[in-house]
């Protein structure tokens, strides 16, 4: 809201971040672990006085420099570029809060560059102890980069007390700092060993192929096995909502975890078979498989870590759509269109309803949802919903789905957003429902005929306990109540609307009780965000009413993403009835 939104409706910024970030972490963890790998590979060559291993180490160092110095470092800058474009408010917040952390990371980046170049170009030209020392300087500088970035991105997931006091050190050494650091260190070693395995497998020297794939495999297995308890430690450091998302509440995370697990298991298996037990010698294929597995492990980990922050981009501080948590109440009061900076349609009118709705979509939904295309297309996600159902859904979106931020703004703005989504995208009606229209008409008539002398509140008692017929008669004989009033002179229809309005004022419970629960409406309000009526007809087939009601009351047992139906017993029955024959009902 403070910054403009770079709007590519069919692509979305999230996918661009993911593309750059996942490839970056795959190489940047290599840049950390690879330093250690090179040192121990060189030490092995020195210990065994092996020219061949030294030669392999040098060639691997060249591959290392080409990959980490170019692709690794530039995609690192690339992440900074893309997050500043996609989420400038959060980027600015992190840059300003942790500027000296970033600046210190820059110092280690300079040291890394110098050390990497000296290490590579001075191979064989420097005495080996100095050369190894340069290797250690490289590794320590690279690990310190990890140390610093780990502190800052950890604060985004587990801010702890930093969310309140903004103290640099409290944010940096946040609750997940150490588990994450240890976990990443082991993963970095594992990834670096997979790259080492890859280099060795493609060596033209058969002895090196055997010797160094085995050496690499032991490093990879050690890294992977040590990462398991570190990963568990990391999980225990997560706050309860994030842990719930990781354990099944988030569909994004649930769909990604299996890839990481399969990657880890396959990696372990291939390393054991080809390098430790040496049952199979088709090393090049194994090397490619191992790299792909390592990519799956780190990719799914980063994906899960990012998704576990939802609905926040900076946990407890700023929602994914850049709205700060502590500003929500004020914006709800003043209206989003009035509060945000980059808005064209500040006043809602019937003419600009869809345009304002689109602006609200861009500012509040586009951070995660694309339009008409892409992975999280809002058009397909809302295709079952009516305007009425969508408004209700938007207003309680954060309660229904914790990982989505709350809609921030007035109810008229929520209605405008829903109007854009159902009207513009699906061509469905988005005007007020007949009941709402009648209520609006009654309020308008009250405004025109009564409000010069009476406030609506004053008439609550006057109409309490009266039947509609009595109010209607009273409106025709107002002059009998007071000389100052004239009988209501509008049309019969208008009198009917005003009568209903006044009756509702004094007797809200009677009004509500008069309407039996409507299964179709209940379905729209509670189910249509995810299900079409025909889908549920299948699920309900063959079930008795009592079984259906029981199922509605225990939806959380079917899926972690659902909550049990929370309406009254009458409503549960009406909904069950609708579900059992929705198509017939529609007809």
């Amino acid at each position, binding site marked *: 809201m403070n*910054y*403009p939104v770079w709007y590519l409706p069919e692509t979305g910024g999230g996918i661009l971040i993911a593309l750059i970030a996942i490839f970056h972490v795959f190489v940047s963890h290599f840049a950390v672990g690879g330093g250690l790998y090179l040192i121990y590979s060189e030490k092995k060559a020195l210990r065994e006085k092996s020219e061949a291993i030294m030669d392999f180490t040098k060639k691997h160092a060249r591959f290392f420099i080409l990959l980490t110095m*170019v692709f690794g470092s530039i995609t690192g800058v690339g992440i900074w570029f893309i997050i500043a474009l996609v989420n400038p408010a959060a980027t*600015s917040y992190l840059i300003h809060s942790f500027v000296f952390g970033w600046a210190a990371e820059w110092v280690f980046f*300079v040291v890394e560059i110098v050390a990497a170049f000296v290490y590579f170009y001075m191979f064989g030209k420097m005495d080996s102890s*100095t050369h190894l020392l340069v290797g250690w300087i490289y590794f320590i500088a690279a690990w310190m980069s990890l140390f610093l970035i780990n502190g800052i991105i950890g604060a985004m997931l587990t801010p702890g007390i930093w969310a309140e006091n903004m103290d640099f050190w409290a944010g940096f050494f946040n609750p997940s700092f150490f588990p994450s650091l240890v976990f990443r260190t082991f993963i970095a070693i594992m990834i670096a060993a997979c790259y080492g395995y890859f280099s060795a497998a493609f060596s033209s020297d058969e002895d090196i192929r055997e010797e160094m794939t085995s050496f690499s495999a032991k490093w990879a297995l050690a890294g992977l096995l040590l990462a398991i308890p570190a990963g568990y430690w990391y999980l225990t450091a997560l706050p309860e909502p994030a842990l719930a998302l990781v354990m099944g509440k988030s569909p994004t995370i649930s769909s990604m975890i299996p890839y990481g697990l399969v990657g880890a298991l396959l990696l372990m298996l291939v390393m054991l078979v080809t390098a430790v037990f040496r049952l199979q010698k088709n090393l090049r294929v194994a090397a490619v498989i191992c790299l792909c597995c390592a990519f799956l492990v780190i990719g799914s980990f980063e994906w899960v870590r990012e998704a576990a922050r939802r609905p926040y981009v900076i946990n407890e501080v700023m929602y994914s759509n850049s709205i700060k948590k502590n500003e929500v109440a004020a914006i709800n009061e003043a209206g989003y269109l009035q509060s945000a900076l980059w808005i064209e349609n500040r006043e809602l009118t019937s003419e600009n309803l869809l345009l304002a709705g689109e602006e609200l979509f861009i500012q509040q939904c586009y951070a995660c949802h694309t339009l008409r295309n892409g992975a999280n297309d809002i058009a397909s996600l809302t295709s079952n919903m009516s305007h009425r159902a969508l408004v209700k859904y938007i207003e309680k979106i954060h309660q229904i789905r914790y990982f989505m931020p709350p809609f921030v703004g007035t109810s008229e703005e929520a209605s405008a957003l829903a109007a854009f989504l159902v009207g513009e995208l699906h061509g469905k009606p988005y005007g007020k429902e007949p009941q709402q229209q009648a209520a609006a008409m009654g309020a308008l008539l009250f405004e025109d005929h009564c409000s010069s002398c009476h406030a609506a509140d004053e008439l609550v008692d006057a109409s309490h306990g009266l039947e509609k017929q009595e109010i209607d008669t009273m409106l025709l004989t107002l002059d009998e109540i007071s000389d100052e009033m004239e009988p209501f002179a509008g049309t019969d229809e208008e009198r009917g609307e005003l009568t209903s309005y006044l009756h509702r004022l004094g007797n809200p419970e009677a009004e509500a009780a008069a309407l039996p629960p409507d299964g179709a409406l209940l379905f729209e309000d509670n189910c249509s965000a995810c299900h079409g009526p025909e889908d549920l007809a299948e699920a309900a087939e063959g079930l008795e009413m009592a079984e259906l009601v029981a199922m509605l009351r225990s939806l959380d047992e079917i899926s972690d993403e659902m909550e049990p139906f929370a309406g009254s017993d009458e409503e549960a029955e009406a909904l069950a009835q609708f579900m059992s024959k929705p198509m017939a009902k529609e007809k």
Partner: protein
Amino acid sequence: METLFIPQPDTIPAHWGWFQFLLLLTFPLHLLAMNAMIGGLVIAIAQHLGGGPVRRQLAHRIALALPLVIAFVVNFGVAPLLFVQVLYGQFVYTSSILMGSYWILVIPILILAYYGAYLYDFKFKALGAFGPWIALVVLVLMLAIGFFFSNNMLLMALPERFADYFAAQNGTILSFRHQEFWPRFLHMMFGALAMGGLFVVLLGKIKGYENKDLRIHSEKVGLLVFNLFTLINIGIGFWYLLSLPGPQRQLFLGANTMATLLFILAMLLVCVVIYFGVTRRFWATLATAVLLVVVMTFMRAWLRSSYLQDHFTLDQLQLVPQYSPLVFFLVTLVLGLACIAWMIRQTMLAMD
């Protein structure tokens, strides 16, 4: 009056003077490395295409240095970009988004160019006559990045253009049609060419006692390039000055005493540097030219604050002080520099 769209800045943890100091300390380093890269590339291409063993040797030496230079262009660019985001985040994030679809292209273009530079270096001999064409592609890609940077750095100083966002939300707004753009961009690039000449002289001096021909040739070519393009750049510099909007131009012509003194100092340094260059006193030329680059970056900073002063001045940034992280950074910097000095010394010892 038209509505201005300027975001609220975030708070800063130390006095803004610290960030301005660090920005002005690191930005000249980026410029010097960028100059060595652009100027070096142009000279390498020309020398390589020119043919002959010494020219070819010079091109090869530049090719060898190029990946290292690019690494430092990037690294020395990171620090000033960080500090400019701290000081002027509300402007630079906005302008980056306004040109987002181009701005993000900087990354793939840079990766491509960087690998091209490694190709030119590692395969210099194998590429043969094809080599200079690879270098030319690298040069064009790097110039494209410079073009996008110039667009962004100018656009961030023009907040009255920010409302254009509503007509193009897909990040395709550039500022090259602004009267100041082309002289600004060309001044920077011709300056890079000139400084690249001095970089080439330096490269010739590495192990110059082993290859006297190369040393003499690189000094001749480098100083010629420096003198020629510095003279041309004086003309472009005046074009740049004249292209500035009135108040900004006047800033250096008497309206602001300090800015005017800085401008006079820069003009004096230009005279001195040309004198040293023409009389072939390399080290004096290099020292004066580096000083001139530093003075020019000060003038550039002045120009930016002048553009923005109606909307924002740095003292408006809200300070929420916490100085211990600054101390941590300074200690890290000192240790890092000591480490680098040790490694360079060990390298020199090993090479001797």
